[in-house]
């Protein structure tokens, strides 16, 4: 049974050394047409609902969008002013840490409606290395962080959502800056905070944002809200459940963002980490 040996060698290579990325991305390219076909009914539905829409609905929609746009513009003005003020204050403090919330570039990618392993939380995105998507790239939606890219082929890529059991996200409580690691709880579509002592200062209703540690996600993006804190003295750690703010199972479109690597790199050890990643 040569094939059995080959499979075991292949599994070892894949698991330990990530040596099969080329083969995988090639086969992913082969799978892409199939994925497009399974996505077709959904796509047709989308097309139908955009094509056969009444004029009054469009007008109404246009109006609400205009109002929303005005509001967002107004908010953005305030944001620019705040940012300028922030930079100035940091200068006054002679702090080297820069505001790293700015994003260089972002594109919209569509989630292809195809299913992967039902026990993981992964999605296929319609953008690949042709659009400079890279492994480890954060994806976000209007409501918050969604996940990161784990595999790229030419026209598509696979992203792991933050609710995947093997995803860990460095977060921070907005109220007091307590840092934590949030990992996925796939069956409930929730997150769990790991290794928080029983006397930790996290209460129900706390907002969590990304902390920017780990150099993958830019700091300050909303992650979720604490919905349950269970402190059981017989357990070593508090059990804290978090509901994600991004509607992970409801989005068709996500934002692939390119965080400003120079800014990320400007902060402590990220530069080393990032350059090491690029060499790999």
């Amino acid at each position, binding site marked *: *049974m040569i*094939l*059995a040996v*080959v*499979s*075991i*060698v*292949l*599994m070892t*290579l*894949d*698991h330990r050394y990530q040596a*099969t990325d080329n*083969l*995988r991305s090639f*086969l*992913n390219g*082969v*799978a892409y047409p*199939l*994925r497009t*076909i*399974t996505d077709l009914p*959904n796509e047709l539905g989308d097309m139908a609902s955009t094509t056969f829409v009444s004029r009054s609905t469009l007008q109404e929609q246009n109006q609400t969008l205009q109002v929303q746009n005005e509001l967002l513009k107004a908010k953005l003005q305030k944001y620019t002013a705040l940012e300028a003020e922030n930079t100035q204050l940091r200068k006054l403090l002679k702090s080297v840490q820069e505001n790293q919330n700015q994003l260089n570039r972002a594109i919209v990618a569509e989630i292809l*409606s*195809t*299913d*992967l*392993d*039902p*026990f*993981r939380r*992964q999605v296929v995105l319609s953008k690949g290395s042709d659009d400079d998507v890279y492994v480890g790239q954060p994806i976000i939606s209007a409501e918050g962080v969604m996940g990161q890219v784990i*595999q790229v082929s030419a026209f598509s890529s*696979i992203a792991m959502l933050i609710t995947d*059991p*093997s995803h860990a996200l460095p977060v921070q409580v907005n109220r007091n800056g307590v840092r934590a690691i949030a990992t996925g709880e*796939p*069956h409930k579509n929730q997150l769990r905070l790991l290794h928080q002592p029983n006397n930790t200062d996290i209460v129900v209703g706390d907002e969590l944002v990304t902390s920017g540690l780990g150099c993958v996600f830019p700091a300050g993006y909303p992650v979720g809200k604490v919905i349950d804190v269970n402190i059981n003295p017989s357990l070593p750690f508090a059990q804290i459940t978090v509901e994600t703010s991004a509607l992970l199972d409801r989005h068709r479109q996500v934002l692939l963002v390119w965080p400003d690597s120079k800014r990320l790199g400007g902060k402590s050890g990220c530069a080393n980490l990032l350059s090491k990643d690029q060499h790999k």
Partner: protein
Amino acid sequence: MNTTPHNGLVILASFMVAYLLTMLPLPDWLGLLRPYWVAMVLMYWCMALPHRVGVGIGWLSGLFLDVVYNALLGQHALGLALLAYFTVTLHQRVRVFPLWQQSLTIYVLCLIYAALVLWVKGMTGHPPASLFWYLIPTFTTALCWPPVFLLMRRIRRGFHVA
């Protein structure tokens, strides 16, 4: 090997349909019930044409299934190769079984396949959260076997695949 030009394509097409069914987006609870389509098609061809479809095809189809699932490369390849091996070994006996008895055999074979994949998953640190839900597709595969078998036999006879 190819007596008529299209009969190999029928086998390929049946596998493609199986992959499409595997990828078809379903709601979460229904997705957990999804039978092993690729394994079913593979077993059918192994049973009907053991001289053409065997361990090699099983391994290749499993490799592609790994990519489709985005699983560790080789785990389904190993599982399906073993499944094909067992099916080819048993094909003369299973072929003459009544359908319900075939289903039962299919169930046991799927259980072996599922156990093998589970074993690999456990070793690489991705054990499924619940064993019950993990093994549910083996039931649904066995339940789906009679209609799939009848349909595939019709297709095979209709296209004269030999």
